């Protein structure tokens, strides 16, 4: 896989932000089944600012822009999601540092830093029915793809798609889990049978990123 340029960073973040804004109601609905129904709306409070103001952010480095996003999210998003997503961006930004291009290994290091931050902030482990249950397997898949000779030479289009598919499948599998974190945990056994809102959101966002990536770099793409 090739280096990702700053254009690619812009693309990923903008895709993520608009996907979150467009799916706010859907995500909130998922959170209402055994949670309190605010998840999508809370995230939107932050990402609509990211979407609107992105072009004004300091983009001197990947670290700078991700930290700025982390601050916006912490400042605008309430509930669990503000500290969780805010921390994820701050940690990923710290891992990226002053790079202006990212090697595939850098992306993996950033995702791992984000995951560690989420775990530290919220105290959750894998299997507790949170967004980690989609984010971690997707990251694992992406990492495995880096060394996969079959996926070379396509700018990571297949690798990203595979990670997104893993996330969607993993999110679906949260259905059978007992919620141990967040408000859904209060419902105990009744949380079994519905997917986790955060994990599902990760799947939806990664699919949107995979599509955008394919449009830019896939066969028949203009670029």
């Amino acid at each position: 896989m090739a280096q990702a340029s700053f254009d690619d960073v812009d693309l990923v973040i903008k895709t993520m932000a608009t996907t979150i804004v467009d799916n706010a109601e859907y995500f909130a609905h998922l959170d209402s089944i055994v949670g309190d129904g605010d998840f999508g709306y809370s995230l939107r409070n932050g990402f609509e600012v990211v979407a609107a103001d992105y072009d004004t952010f300091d983009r001197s480095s990947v670290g700078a822009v991700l930290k700025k996003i982390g601050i916006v999210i912490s400042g605008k998003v309430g509930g669990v999601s503000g500290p969780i997503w805010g921390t994820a961006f701050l940690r990923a930004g710290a891992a990226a540092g002053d790079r202006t291009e990212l090697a595939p290994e850098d992306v993996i290091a950033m995702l791992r830093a984000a995951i560690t931050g989420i775990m530290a902030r919220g105290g959750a482990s894998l299997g507790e029915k949170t967004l980690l249950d989609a984010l971690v397997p997707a990251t694992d898949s992406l990492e495995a793809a880096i060394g996969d000779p079959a996926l070379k030479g396509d700018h990571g289009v297949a690798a990203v798609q595979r990670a997104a598919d893993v996330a969607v499948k993993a999110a679906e599998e949260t259905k059978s889990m007992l919620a141990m974190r967040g408000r859904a945990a209060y419902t105990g056994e009744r949380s079994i049978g519905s997917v986790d809102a955060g994990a599902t959101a990760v799947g939806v966002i990664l699919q949107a990123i995979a599509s955008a990536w394919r449009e830019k770099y896939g066969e028949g793409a203009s670029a």
Partner: protein
Amino acid sequence: MRKFLNDPKKFVPEFLEGIALASGGSLKYEPKYNLIYRADMPKADRVSIIQGSGSGHEPAHTMIVGPGMLDAACPGDVFAGPPVEFVTETSKLMDTPRGVLYIVNNYTGDRTAWEMAKELCEAEGQKIGYLLVNDDVAVKDSTWTIGRRGVAGNFFVIKAAGAMADKGGSLEECVRVGEKVIANVRTMGIALSSCTPPVRGTPLFEIADGEMEIGIGIHGEPGRQRARMGTADEIVDLLLNAIVPDLPFKSGDEVALMVNGLGGTPISELYLLYGIAHKWLAAKGISVFRSYVGEYCTSLEMAGAHISLLKVDAEIKELLMAPAEIAYRVF
């Protein structure tokens, strides 16, 4: 949606502005960080007490800002704790050399925001005290490590800490009495209907007429059990049988007894529950020192109620009886 609203997204700022206007100048509203705060605070010689949690629980906590209670409150959106930035700004605004007490309800969202804020503000040299309210016995013997929710008992914690601050107590003394209240207060609730967050526009879940949700949370999160609707006697029995053995409250104990409405239940029904609970406790040798019947911590327009019991000693009694003056008053 049967609600008085303009733009649903402006629901929180608009009611906060109403609180400030209704206060006759004693409370101020800071729109940038959604703050309601006492115009006459902070004071160098008094501990400040602040809270911030999701909106939708009014009068908690934005309407209980005032002398003897909170000095500032920073609500988030409906059912979402405030962003960290709101909390740090509130903390800075109420900073005093005597220290700032955070009273936090035990939810992941609230805790993470307040703990992050504590770190940040301590790093800037603020003296911070921290209380975690977790009175809801519906969340019991659980494997989910976040533990019990903070619900209606929060009122007693604020009342006691506020009275201690007014007496000139140190931050440590405010924390001590707050922890004493937390150790002695237990709550459980029941819902008869759902509620509709303004931005969402539809009920969070459905409770059929003739059913009730036992152990309801205050964010519309379903409780632990759905059951056939019981009589008032049966419901009080069920709630007190969960609450009383938990501390346990024993014969000879004196308690403050609260029947808290969840927003849509008329106060007549709350008094009806109160009477039953009072007699139930009397039959067990537990006597009521002081009653609290009304809305203290709601869930929008949900029909339902909490019963809270606080075991009192001479010190807690004195703190409960101390004067206070808040937006949500009657006269």
